C-alpha cells in the first residue's frame, strides 16, 4: 500500500478560548507503530478524538485508512479500533458480554464472535475472569479487556490512548508485548499516545513530540536522539553556572547544553563523551563552578523531550 495509514493537514481543535490542537501535520506509514508523546494537556487525546471521528476538527483535514474523517466517517469507523484514555466499560456486564455486544455492533456473526472472543481472551489472559462482571476486575484486567475489545473487529488501524497509564510494570510489559506482536504478525498500524518515555522508545517506529497542541519534533527515535549528539556529559555541581555555560558555548564540539536548575545539573551534548570529558571539567573549574559529580552517558528520548518541550518527564 502506497498511501499513508493516517495523514493530517493542519488539524486544529478549539474549545472556546482553549486551543487544544493548534495545527498538526502528521503522516503515519502503514504497518508502523507511531507514538505521540507529550506532557499532560498537550493535545494528544484531542488529536485521537478527531482521528477516531469522535469530535469534528475546527479546521484542517485528515485521512484515516484513506478516508476523510468528516465526510467519510462511517468508512473510517469500520476500519479502526480504539481504546480510550479513561476506562470505558459497563461495570454491570461480564467481560464476555462486553465483547459480544461490541461484535454485534459491528455485525459480526455468532460464529465469528465466538471464535474471535475465545482467541482474544486467551491472548490477553482473561480466561478465568471473562464470565465475571467487569466491576470485579482490577485496573490491569480492565485494560486488557479493552484491548481485546479494540482488537475484536480486526481493525486495520488501532488507536491506543495511554494504554498503560496507571498499570504496574508487569502489566505494562505484558501490553507492550501484545502491541508488538499485533504489529509484527498482523501488520496492524498503531497510533498510541503516552507520556512514558520508555514506552515510545521500546515500541515505536516513529515518534512525534507534541506540546501546546503543536508538533515540535518528529522522526525515528534513534535519529531524534542522535541529532542531540553522540554522548551526553552530565555535570552536577554548584557555583557560577552562567559563566560555565558561556564557556561551553564557545567550545566547537558542544552540540547542545541543557540545564536543570532544580537538580543543579548541566547536561552537555558532545560528539564523543570520553574524549571531551577533561575539557568540560576544565571549563567548569576554570569558571568557578564546583563539580560534585560527573558522568558520561548516551542521550535518551527523554533528553530529546526535554530539549523540545523544556520539561523533564516525571511519571
Amino acid at each position, binding site marked *: 500500500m502506497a498511501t499513508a495509514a493516517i495523514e493530517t493537514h493542519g488539524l486544529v481543535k478549539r*474549545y472556546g478560548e482553549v486551543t487544544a490542537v493548534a495545527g498538526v501535520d502528521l503522516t503515519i506509514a502503514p504497518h508502523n507503530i507511531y507514538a505521540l508523546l507529550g506532557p499532560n494537556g498537550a493535545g494528544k487525546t484531542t488529536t485521537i478524538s478527531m482521528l*477516531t*471521528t*469522535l*469530535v*469534528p476538527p475546527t479546521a484542517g483535514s485528515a485521512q484515516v485508512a484513506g478516508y476523510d474523517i468528516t465526510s467519510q466517517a*462511517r468508512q473510517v*469507523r*469500520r476500519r*479502526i479500533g*480504539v481504546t*480510550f484514555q*479513561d476506562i*470505558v*466499560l*459497563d461495570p*454491570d*456486564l461480564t467481560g464476555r*458480554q462486553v465483547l459480544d*455486544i*461490541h461484535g*454485534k*455492533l*459491528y*455485525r459480526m456473526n455468532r460464529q465469528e464472535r465466538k471464535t474471535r472472543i475465545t482467541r482474544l481472551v486467551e491472548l490477553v489472559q482473561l480466561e478465568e475472569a471473562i464470565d465475571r462482571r467487569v466491576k470485579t476486575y482490577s485496573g490491569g484486567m480492565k485494560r486488557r479487556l479493552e484491548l481485546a*475489545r479494540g482488537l475484536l473487529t480486526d481493525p486495520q488501524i488501532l488507536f491506543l490512548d495511554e494504554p498503560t497509564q496507571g498499570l504496574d510494570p508487569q502489566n505494562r510489559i505484558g501490553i507492550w508485548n501484545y502491541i508488538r506482536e499485533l504489529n509484527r504478525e498482523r501488520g496492524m498500524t498503531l497510533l498510541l499516545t503516552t507520556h512514558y518515555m520508555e514506552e515510545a522508545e521500546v515500541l515505536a517506529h516513529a515518534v512525534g513530540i507534541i506540546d501546546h497542541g503543536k508538533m515540535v519534533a518528529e522522526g525515528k527515535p534513534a535519529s531524534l536522539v542522535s541529532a542531540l549528539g553522540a554522548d551526553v556529559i552530565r555535570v552536577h555541581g554548584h557555583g557560577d553556572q552562567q559563566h560555565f555555560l558561556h564557556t561551553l558555548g564557545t567550545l566547537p564540539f558542544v552540540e547542545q547544553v541543557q540545564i536543570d536548575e532544580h537538580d543543579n545539573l548541566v547536561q552537555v551534548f558532545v560528539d564523543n563523551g570520553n574524549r571531551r570529558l577533561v575539557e568540560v571539567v576544565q571549563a567548569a573549574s576554570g569558571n568557578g563552578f564546583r563539580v560534585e559529580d560527573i558522568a558520561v552517558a548516551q542521550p535518551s528520548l527523554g533528553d530529546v523531550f526535554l530539549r523540545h518541550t523544556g520539561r523533564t518527564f516525571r511519571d
Partner: protein
Amino acid sequence: MHATYVIWSKHMTKFFRNAEEALGLAIQSVLWVVLFGVGMRGIVTQVSGGDYLAFILPGIIALSALAGAVGGGMMLLDERLRGITKEYLVSPIPRLSILLGNAASTTTKALLQALLMLLIGVLMGVRLAGNPLGWLAALLLVGLFALGFSGIALAVAAVSRSIMGYHGMIFLFNLPLLFASNALYPLSVLPTWMRTLVLFNPTTYLIDAVRALAFGAEPTLGLFSSTAVILLFAILGIWLALTAFRRSIRR
C-alpha cells in the same frame, strides 16, 4: 435498525441480570396499585359511582411510565458520564440508534410494568372491558406515551452535566404532568381554568383512552383525538431527544 436492536438487548440483559432492578420495579408496581387502590377506595366513593381502582389504575400506569422514562434517561446520562457512549460513537452505527435503543428498552420495561399492574388490578377485582383488542390498544398507547416521555428524558440527559442537574430538570415537569391531569379526579369535577391546563397535558389523553379501552369507561375526549395526541407526543419526544443529542456530540 440492527444497532438499535443490539443496544436494546444490551439494556434488557442488564435489566434482567440486575435482579434488584427487575424485582424493585415489580414490587413498586404492586405497592402502587395496592396502596393507592385500597387506600383511596376507602375515602373516595362518589367518583363516577364505580370502582375507584379501575379509575385510578391508568393514572398509576402513566405515572410508572414516567418513572421508567426518567430511569431510561438516567441510563443514557450514566453511559455519557462514564464515557460508554464513546464506544458507540466510534463504531459504524447510526447516531439515532443509540437513542432508539435506549427509548425502546425504556418502553419495553414500561410495558412490562403496565402489564403487571393490570394483572394485579384484575387479581384485586377490577373488571376489564370485554374486548381483548381494547387491552392491546391500551398497551400500545402506553408504549407510545413511554416512548415520548423517554424522548424528553433523553433530551434532558443529553445536555445535563451531572446527575443532580438531570433530576432537578426532570422534576420540573414530572410532577405537573401527573397532578395537572385527570389521573386522580375526573375532568368533569375540575374548574374550567384547570381543565384548560389539563387539556394541554398528553397524560390526560393517555389516561382517558386507557380508561375507555381497557376498563370500558365512556371516553370523554374521543379515542381518535387521544390517539393522535399521543402519537404526536411520541414523535415530538424522539425529535427533541435527537436534536439535543446531536448538539451534545457535535463538539
